[in-house]
Each structure stands twice: as structure tokens, then as C-alpha cells.
């Protein structure tokens, strides 16, 4: 390590530590108290436990404890054939089900040098975006519920069905489609699906508008989220945050636009939303805009849907040639990537799953330092994680 780079690094680390410390009021130091949040919490998606040390009402340190849902997918993939793996990885982020399968399949296709036919690529992208719409909608409704407004979450559960019904009509599964295949898709879309999906997209836009007026105009909501849990862009980047959380910190980076390999995002006209504030409000706001933008992407792709087969010619027994491949896509919760090491066998040699929530939640000890207890809930809700996506 060079001397200059080292000292510069220490300086930056020092500044970051001071910034975190300055949020804790040391003058009023009282006898600390440990507050155990979880592992059961009705509003978390899974069982996250946070051990928070408090000074009065301020958090001195927060330590998330995970592993209650660790299923060891990286080990399990090593004893499953490639087509069997999609069944497992559906369960990583169970609210963005179809989107979980896509990067893995793309990585396997990359190794096999198979290219899915255009129609399959289009349908993949449409289903991918529909996962995002359902996921973001529920995330926003759930956030409102955690902040004390019970109505939006019921609206979210109700309206989400319009999307899930469409996903079910194609794949047969509301949550675990298991529909993506190496070289294409299991099936084509059913008759009449395009029209009914467009109808459901109109409903989703209405849901977004409703949610916006119901939640984002609410004074309690704004008071509890504006200026709470600010994550500067530099910190968000070095913790590897992604998705709406990163764009809520003003970073204009979206893999759908910047690395559209294997998906049809470059065939639609859409916008990447960012918000400069980096607080809880901006993260939720970006999430809402992305949900609405997703409906436009789906509409456009439905209009330009090419005809043709949905499956390329692939061997019936999938053997992936030796090599390594890394594919990362912009999943509902953020960047999700699979690093596949193949030894030319029926099963992968090693699969590294880079899930979005794992990185998004790694910032919790940093961001919770110095905040007040009620803000913990607001911040965690705005980060919007799914435990299956953390624990894998």
C-alpha cells in the first residue's frame, strides 16, 4: 500500500467515523440500555433481529442479527442441475419471484453461448417488470403500515393481485413461477393476455396515483421520513447499495439502462428516476416512480412484442461448458447477480449469489447510529429488504 493512498484512506475513514459519532449526543450520556428488536416483527418480511444499544432514546449502536432464514442456497446449487436451480432461487426474493430466475438463466446462457429468441427476451422483460411493480407496490404499502397507516397496505395487497393474476396466467404460479429456461421460456403467453395485461397496467397506474395521494401527501408520513436516515451517495456506493435505495441517494445508475444485456429494456423509452436527498422519503419516492415507470415499460414492450418461438434449440440435458460467468440485473430490490463457475458438468461447481438486500442492509449499523428509536422503523421500512434476499 502506498503511503499517500494509505493516509488518504485513513483520513476518509476518520471523517466517516466522526460523522457517525457526531450524531450521538455524548453530553447526555446515561446508562445504556439494550433494546432487542425482533426476531419476530409483524411488519418485517421474515425474521430480522436488531440488537440496538440505546442512550436515552438515541441509538448508539445497532447490530443486525441474521441467519434465521439461512437456507444455504450456495451449497444446495452445487448438487442440483441447472434447470433445478431455478426452483430454489425463486425463493430468494419471494416478492420479486420471476426476477430472481433471470440473472441465473442469463449467466448460464452466457456460458452455453445460447441466445433466447426475441419473443422470449421480450416476455422475460415484461414479467421482470411486472415483478418489480408488484414488489414495489407492496413495499410502499408496507412502509405506510409500519409508519402507522394501515389502509395503504390493504390497498397494496388488493391491487397487487391484478399483476399477480397476470403472472399466474402465464406461468401458473403467483409467487414461484419457475418459468425461465435456459434458451427461452417454458411457454408462450396465453391468448388475450396482452389486452388483459394492459388493463391491469392501467389499474396499477391508478394504484400508484392513489398511493401517492394517500401516503406521500400525508403529513405524518412526510414528517417521519423527510430528513430521516440520510445516506450520502458516497456511503451508499461503498456499501454496495443498489436499486431504488441507491437512486434515492442521487446516484444515476440503473442496470436496466446501463447494462441491458439479455433483456429488452433498450427497446422501450423510459426514464431512470433519482432523488437527491438520500433520506427515507426519497427512497420511497423513487420506488413509487419506478413502479409507475414499470407500467409504461410493460405497455411499450407489449406493443412491440415480436412473434416467433419462445425457446431456442438447446440440448435436453443441459451441460454447461467449462468457464465462469457473471450476470447482474436490476431486480426489484436492487442489483442481483450470479457468479457461476462451471466445470462442464450437469451441476454448477460454484454459484455465488449476490443479492440486493444483503448489501442494502449492510449499511444498517452505519445509518442507525445516532437516530431516535421511532426512526429505526422508518429507516428499515424505507430500505425495504426481504429476509430471504438477505439470508439466501
Amino acid at each position, binding site marked *: *500500500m*502506498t503511503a499517500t*493512498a*494509505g493516509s*488518504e*484512506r*485513513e483520513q476518509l*475513514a476518520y471523517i*466517516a467515523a466522526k460523522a457517525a459519532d457526531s450524531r450521538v449526543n455524548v453530553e447526555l450520556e446515561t446508562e445504556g440500555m439494550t433494546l432487542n428488536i425482533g426476531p419476530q416483527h409483524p411488519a418485517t418480511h421474515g425474521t430480522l433481529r436488531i440488537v440496538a444499544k440505546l442512550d436515552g432514546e438515541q441509538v448508539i449502536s445497532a447490530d443486525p442479527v*441474521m*441467519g434465521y432464514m*439461512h437456507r*444455504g442456497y450456495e*451449497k*444446495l446449487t*452445487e*448438487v*442440483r*442441475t441447472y434447470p433445478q436451480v431455478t426452483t430454489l432461487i425463486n425463493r430468494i426474493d419471494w416478492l420479486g419471484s420471476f426476477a430472481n430466475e433471470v440473472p441465473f438463466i442469463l449467466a448460464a446462457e*452466457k456460458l452455453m453461448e445460447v441466445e433466447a429468441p*426475441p419473443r422470449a427476451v421480450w416476455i422475460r422483460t415484461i414479467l421482470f417488470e411486472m415483478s418489480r411493480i408488484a414488489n414495489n407496490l407492496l413495499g410502499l404499502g408496507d412502509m405506510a403500515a409500519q409508519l402507522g397507516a394501515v389502509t395503504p397496505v390493504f390497498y397494496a395487497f388488493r391491487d397487487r393481485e391484478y399483476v399477480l393474476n397476470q403472472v399466474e396466467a402465464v406461468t401458473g404460479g403467483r409467487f414461484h413461477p419457475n418459468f425461465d429456461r435456459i434458451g427461452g421460456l417454458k*411457454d*408462450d403467453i396465453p391468448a388475450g393476455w396482452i389486452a388483459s395485461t394492459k388493463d391491469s397496467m392501467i389499474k396499477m397506474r391508478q394504484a400508484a396515483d392513489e398511493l401517492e395521494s394517500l401516503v406521500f401527501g400525508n403529513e405524518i408520513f412526510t414528517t417521519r421520513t423527510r430528513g430521516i436516515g440520510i445516506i450520502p451517495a458516497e456511503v451508499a*456506493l*461503498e*456499501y*454496495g447499495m443498489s436499486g431504488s435505495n441507491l437512486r434515492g441517494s442521487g*446516484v444515476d*445508475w440503473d442496470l436496466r439502462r446501463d*447494462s441491458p444485456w439479455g433483456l429488452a429494456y433498450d*427497446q422501450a423509452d423510459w426514464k431512470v428516476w433519482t432523488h437527491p436527498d438520500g433520506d427515507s422519503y426519497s427512497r420511497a419516492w423513487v420506488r413509487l416512480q419506478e413502479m409507475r415507470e414499470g407500467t409504461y415499460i410493460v405497455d411499450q414492450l407489449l406493443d412491440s412484442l*415480436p*412473434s416467433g*418461438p*419462445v*425457446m*431456442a*434449440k*438447446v*440440448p*435436453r*440435458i443441459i451441460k454447461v461448458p467449462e*468457464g*465462469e460467468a*457473471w450476470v*447482474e440485473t436490476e431486480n426489484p430490490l436492487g*442489483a442481483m*447477480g450470479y*457468479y457461476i463457475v462451471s*466445470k462442464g458438468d*450437469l*451441476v454448477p461447481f*460454484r454459484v*455465488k449469489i*449476490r443479492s440486493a438486500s*444483503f*448489501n442494502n442492509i*449492510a449499511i444498517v449499523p*452505519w445509518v442507525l447510529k445516532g437516530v431516535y428509536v421511532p426512526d429505526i422503523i422508518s429507516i428499515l421500512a424505507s430500505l425495504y429488504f426481504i429476509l430471504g434476499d438477505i*439470508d439466501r
Partner: protein
Amino acid sequence: MADTDTATEEAEEAPATDEAREALLAELQERLGDAIIDSLIKPGDELWVRVSTEGWAEIADVLRHAMNFLYFDFVSAIDWMPSPFGREMDAEVDLVLAAAAGEAEEPEAPGEMEQGYAGGDTRFQVFGRVLDVTDLRGLIIKADVPESLEVPTWITSYPGAVWHEREVHEMYGISFAGNPDMRNLYLPGDFEGYPLRKDFPLLARRVKPWPGIVDVEGMPGDGDEEGVGDASATDESEAAQ
């Protein structure tokens, strides 16, 4: 139409990104010198760089502070040792598939250890990825893990690496010098063994056969002399169009 569009785009893009990756590699070599042991560029896809164990922290430092690679993606590890359990570790259904492909071999002895892209000399390797989100560059960095199973930490450059390193530590037993928090992340504190190592048996598979065999339906083309039945499956879907 769209098909040809994407095809031409790829044809145009591939050499360009290749140049960009070569430039990135050249810059890294200039800055790090001998620390870079090996590298591999897949045009239009990815750049792999292998550094010495000592260079593992240095390359992160250079990328983070001198080259605008501000985004931390992940850190993980690979155990390159072939599984000593051979095909015994495979599910019953895999053996059936292998038999259909005419490859029902005896449980083979573990083969030679063979490292992947950008080479390697040790059983364990750590690898990670960082990105430059303004210029949209990224690379995968690998490093060998010595016998002492200790490599330098990345947290001084990328604080977000702390949980990733904890995960690698509990799953592979590789420790990161300089990371103060090496508690188990997922596993219970008194867990013995390192689950993602190849010599750690997946007990669920060992004690009872995988029940997937019960669910296997007869597939069209079963009984073919070759296991590759590509024609029948795709013809059907084409006919459905």
C-alpha cells in the same frame, strides 16, 4: 427486425468494450506493477484480474481512491478442490440423467484441482467485484489464499465488505486481517466446520436419497440412443405459434 438490431449492436459494441477493458488493465498494471499476476479479458463481457495475496488490499485501495471505482459489489471465495465425495454427492435424479446421456460412469476419483479464469495456485481463492458507476466499468478481482488462510481486508477501502468478509469467514474459514468483526453472520456461534468447503458433506443428501426421482415424468424422446433431444421439444413449441 429487432433481432437484427441487437445483433448489429453487439457486433459494434464488442470491440469497443474490449478496448476499454484493455485500457483498464493497462492502467492497473501501470499502477500496481508486479502485484498483478494474471488477467483475462472476455471481449464485451468481463475482465478478470488476479493479484497476489498482498496486492488484494492494494488493488482495492487503488481502485477506490485513485480510479473512481466507488461501487462495491461483493466479495466471496471459491474452494477449487474437487468434491471428495464424487458423484455420491449427486442426487439420484442426476445419476438417471447421466445414464440417459450414456455417461453413467463409476464414482470417479476426484480429479485434479484446476483453477478457473486468470489461473491460481492455491485451493482457496477470494474474489470480488467493484464498479465505476459513472463510466460504467467493472472488473472481477481474484487473489490466492495462502496456507495461513489469511488475506488482507477490504473494509478500509469499502466498508460494505464487512458482512461479505464475515460470510466468507464462516463459510470457508478464511480470515481477513484488519477486519475487527469476524463473528459468524448466519451460522450459530458454536458451529463447527466450514459449510461451503467442498469437503463439508451436505448431510441431507448423504443420509437419504433425493426424492426427486419419484417426480420424474417420462419425457418425449425418452429411450433415444442420444440424450440430446433438441428437435422434438422445439418443434412442438414452434407448431404452437
